[in-house]
């Protein structure tokens, strides 16, 4: 399994910045869809997942700055306290940078067990900020979003990998 993962890694094309921006915008769009009720509860945080993916595979391109900026945008869109998601996402990036070398040894399906705690920690950070500001804990269902998010991880990685393997112009390297 590990060797396979490494092989897949070799074939991937260097990623273009515009491509990263596009995927992040798409993730943001998915976050903005009118989710309500139970759907909202289990909605994976697409922005967090995309940030994680880029941060693990291309840490030079996506790092703290990008994550923090997108966190601010999410804060404004969700009408939460400014800096809440920004903080959670920078925590996410930190954990990703620490764990990425280890994660590269595993296949995407095994990486789920790395992604789940990372997402849980960032959700916990948001929860603590909310509780500090006077909110009440809404129940363990709150953490479902991390679970669905980590379950989505293999699908997401496969999707990104497929797109990265495509060579738009064979004459170009």
């Amino acid at each position, binding site marked *: 399994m590990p060797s396979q993962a490494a092989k897949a890694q070799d074939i991937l094309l260097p990623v273009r910045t515009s491509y990263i921006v596009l995927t992040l*915008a798409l993730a*943001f*769009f998915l*976050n*903005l*869809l*009118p*989710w*309500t009720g139970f759907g*909202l*509860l289990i*909605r994976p945080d697409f922005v967090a997942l995309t940030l994680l993916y880029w941060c693990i595979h291309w840490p030079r391109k996506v*790092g*703290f700055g990008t994550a*923090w900026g997108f966190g*601010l*945008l999410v804060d*404004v*869109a*969700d*009408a*939460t*306290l*400014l*800096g*809440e998601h*920004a*903080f959670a996402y*920078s*925590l996410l*990036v*930190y954990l990703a*940078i*620490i764990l990425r*070398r280890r994660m590269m040894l595993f296949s995407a399906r095994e990486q789920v067990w790395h992604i789940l705690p990372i997402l849980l920690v960032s959700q916990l950070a948001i929860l603590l*900020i*909310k509780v500090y*500001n*006077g*909110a*009440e804990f*809404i129940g363990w269902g*709150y953490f479902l979003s991390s679970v669905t998010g980590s379950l989505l991880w293999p699908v997401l990685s496969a999707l990104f990998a497929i797109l990265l393997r495509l060579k738009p112009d064979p004459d170009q390297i």
Partner: protein
Amino acid sequence: MDTQLPPLFKRGPTPLTRLVFFTLLSLLLFVTDARFKYLDTFRLSLSVIIYPLQKLATAPGLILDRASDFFATHSYLADENARLKQQNLLNAAQLQRYQALEEENNRLRRLLKARDGFQGNAALAEILYSGRDLFSRRIVIDKGRQDDVKPGEAVVDDTGVIGQVTRAFPFVSEVTLITDKEQTVPVEVVRNGLRAVVFGAGEAGELELRYMPVNVDIQTGDELITSGIDGTYPHGLPVGVVSKIERNAAYAFARIFCTPNAGVDKHRQVIVLLSQTQFPENMAAEPVPQTRGKAKKARRGN
């Protein structure tokens, strides 16, 4: 192994340093956003950036809505038409009565030289989406500062109060629903005129009347309307109906639950009451300096 290599490439500060830096930056934002209101313009400009995406994200839902409208069956439409006609008739009758009453009321008020009640404009707004924050109950509507919506204005639907505008951006505004945990509405019991404050319970379809003594004269089924003494909500808008009362002599206060009248979580269209009534700033605290200033001016004038 890798980490022991000499640094061939300049990599900048370590991840931990960066994390600390960004954490401090976030903390700074928390404090300024929560305690001082300096960041409103910042939030405003960011909201303009994401507005196109927001609008786009609501499109699939709208298309679905329209598609289902398009495929509505004939019998359903006929039914609805009949129902609406009947409703319209009823409304027309009530409206006539209402107009007569308003006329009479205005005359009486003028006689009393009282302040005219709410006569402001209203704007019809559409709900773009309900808030994605699981901890609060908010909605975002498609009218903003461009349409004269200001923070603090009341939002109603055809059956009662829905909430209050808490932030107004250029094209959209955030409305905190009355069911939000931090939202309060001053109300009055229709039956006996008792004034109270109703709090959101943080859950859909539930409100709570707090700090009422155990022996308070409130019954299940009592209707609550806005009392209008806060200067935010005009007087007389229906808010809710008392649904359950728990009187326990062991506690100082009775627990009174209400159901909101308006379909707080239901409709797509709402009405923003654009307030035009000007209340003197902080009536309780400032009369003394004001009169002093006026007196001085008057003296200077003389």
